[in-house]
């Protein structure tokens, strides 16, 4: 194992972690503040990627498509909240799971009707679709560096928004005591719609950032949504700080497990066993971490300070 490889794998872990964070930030806000289990969050992730593919084809550039796709997922989020989810806040979690699972089916079938089953390619501009040498011979794809930068900027932006602005104060207020907030004359309904729109846009951002690496495909959201739930359980439900740290942790553990677990195992067991056990264990690794967190600290590593 060389240091260059280790550094490269750390960067890969960060990339995955930051995409997960973008998805989790919205999910944890909605889950933690509005107490809504939204399985359709992954669908918004998928829609971000599909919107981006369409706008890229229309405008001819990924860079123009990004703000358009963000705006589109934001609006879509508002629509979904007003039509469907608003009616679910007071229902129990099972109803919410049922309804939002239905939304997944509707979104998947809708995408199939509009875009077809075979997925959409999102072409990148040439300067992003390349790679460059960072330091000490670490060659890294430009686009993945962009993901890291965007993820960190969004994290910073959310931190400032939540802790240093009036909107953030209202969000925190809504989380601690919904009734008191509305008694003080704040339109909580409107606030929740706005938060949901923000979460949707973040999910859309995650999807459109992931799109050029894979492809916009049906079901891309469900695959990553499971990881996202793992992240918010580890991080503490409702905590943006927790989901940031947990997302990076999950990204790095998952990548490192895939990269090095087999080599480590082969030190303690015959190579052919390690070859079988390595991939199996590495795909379990983050769930093992989640189980450990649930056993030792069920509220998550960084639960929100409320109450």
């Amino acid at each position, binding site marked *: 194992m060389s240091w260059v*490889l280790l550094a490269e794998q750390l960067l890969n872990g960060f990339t995955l972690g930051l995409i997960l964070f973008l998805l989790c930030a919205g999910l944890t806000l909605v889950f933690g503040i509005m107490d809504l289990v939204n399985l359709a969050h992954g669908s918004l992730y998928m829609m971000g990627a599909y919107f981006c593919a369409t706008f890229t084809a229309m405008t001819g550039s990924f860079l123009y498509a990004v703000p358009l796709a963000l705006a589109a997922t934001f609006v879509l989020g508002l629509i979904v909240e007003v039509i469907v989810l608003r009616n679910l806040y007071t229902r129990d979690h099972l109803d919410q799971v049922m309804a939002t699972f239905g939304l997944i089916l509707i979104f998947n079938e809708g995408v199939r009707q509009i875009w077809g089953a075979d997925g959409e390619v999102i072409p990148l501009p040439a300067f992003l679709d390349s790679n460059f040498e960072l330091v000490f011979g670490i060659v890294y794809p430009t686009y993945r560096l962009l993901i890291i930068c965007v993820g960190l900027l969004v994290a910073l932006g959310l931190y400032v928004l939540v802790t240093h602005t009036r909107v953030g104060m209202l969000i925190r207020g809504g989380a601690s005591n919904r009734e008191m907030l509305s008694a003080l004359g704040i339109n909580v309904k409107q606030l929740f719609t706005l938060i949901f729109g923000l979460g949707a846009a973040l999910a859309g951002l995650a999807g459109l950032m992931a799109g050029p690496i894979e492809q916009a495909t049906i079901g891309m959201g469900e695959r990553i949504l499971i990881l996202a739930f793992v992240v918010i359980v580890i991080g503490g439900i409702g905590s943006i700080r927790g989901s940031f740290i947990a997302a990076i942790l999950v990204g790095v553990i998952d990548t490192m497990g895939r990269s090095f677990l087999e080599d480590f195992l082969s030190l303690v067991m015959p190579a052919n066993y390690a070859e079988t056990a390595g991939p199996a264990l590495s795909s379990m690794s983050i769930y093992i971490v989640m189980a450990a967190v649930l056993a030792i600290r069920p509220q998550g590593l960084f639960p929100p300070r409320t109450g």
Partner: protein
Amino acid sequence: MEIRCDSMMGDDSYRDNVVSRRSGAIEPSQGGINMKTRAIALVSAMALLSSPAWAAEDTVKIGFVTTITTPAGVIGKDMVDAVNIAVDHLGGKMGDKSIELIVEDDQFKPDIGKQATEKLIKEDDVDFVTGYIWSHVLLASAKPVIDSGKFLISSNAGPSQLAGKQCDENFFSTSWQNDQTPMAMGEVLNQRGVKSLYVIAPNYAAGKNMVSGVERTFKGEIAGKDMTKWPDQIDFSAELAKARASNADGIFIFFPGKHGGAFIKQYQQAGLDKEIPLYTVFTVDSLSLPKFQEGNLEGVLGSFTTSYWSPDLDTPQNKKFVNDFKAKHGRYPSHYAAQSYDTIMLIDSAVRAVDGDTNNIGGLRAAMEKADYPSLRGKYAYGNNHFPIQNFYLREVVKDDSGDWTSKIVSTVYKDHQDVYAVECKLD
């Protein structure tokens, strides 16, 4: 073709509708459920209930299990399109029996594939169960078919188990055994002087066969190997970084469907296309090439793959098939399509050999063992395990006359090659 009420459709999508009619499956080329089709499906389903004997006498019932939903549905669509062309070429009839086709969706999942298979056996009582893209789906579905005494014909998957110890007299393949194509690639790598190889493949039945295949013939050193989580993992950055660090002479991959597209894109984004050449099996095909072209992945042009078939393979029936397919669908057929076409033609040869007596299982089997039909790949023989003994070619990705990306045959790697598991099969 067994047709009822079909004249009501009156549009050129009628074949597709016929295919999806009984199963209620959603036909991808139609972009979804056609309500009229649904209504007709109900009517004809009722007609069947009221007169099952009538249907059984006049038709050859073929069940076709493939992936219709999920992004892998693109593969299933290619297969169903090819089956429809085969039915067209046969004029809708096998001898004097009409063809009744029932398409089922496995949703890319072994459990769903098995359920669909059991439905075809018990509820539809088909004569032939065919299709199957995925080895893990086929392995889960094989037992119910074999226990029922019906014929099972794989149009793609070729897991080692069914070629070896679990072979059965009623199982046939119109494709290949999984190990064969990568074995041919291993020979190509030796010829090209590749000394060390980094291997990346998904961690499921077919992926394991592909890896053991290339390892069997490749004489150089395996510099590293990664088995990725299937089908969940689509980001290969960790594997690509390891491949780069290994300084291997070549990277061998097997990633069917959209995973291949994602892999090659990331391979190019990482700049590895300038460092380590890529050798693929079942990754660069007629389904992925248009996507590569759309995404400007020029690195794919000139890359090599091995296969038993190619769109430019020079047999009269292949030319006719490729031309008709392109005329109807505006794209090249894939090997999945070619094998599915062959499946229908193999059944046709057997049904005609027994004069339409589909209860004559022994006669049908003996006829199929002869492989006496115009296969797109040309004449081949069946081994004792009912896998084809056939040629394998080296293919290169090129631009055709109209600028579309396709592949052409460069050389023959194996002549009349038989899979290695045939010796473990008890049949003779």
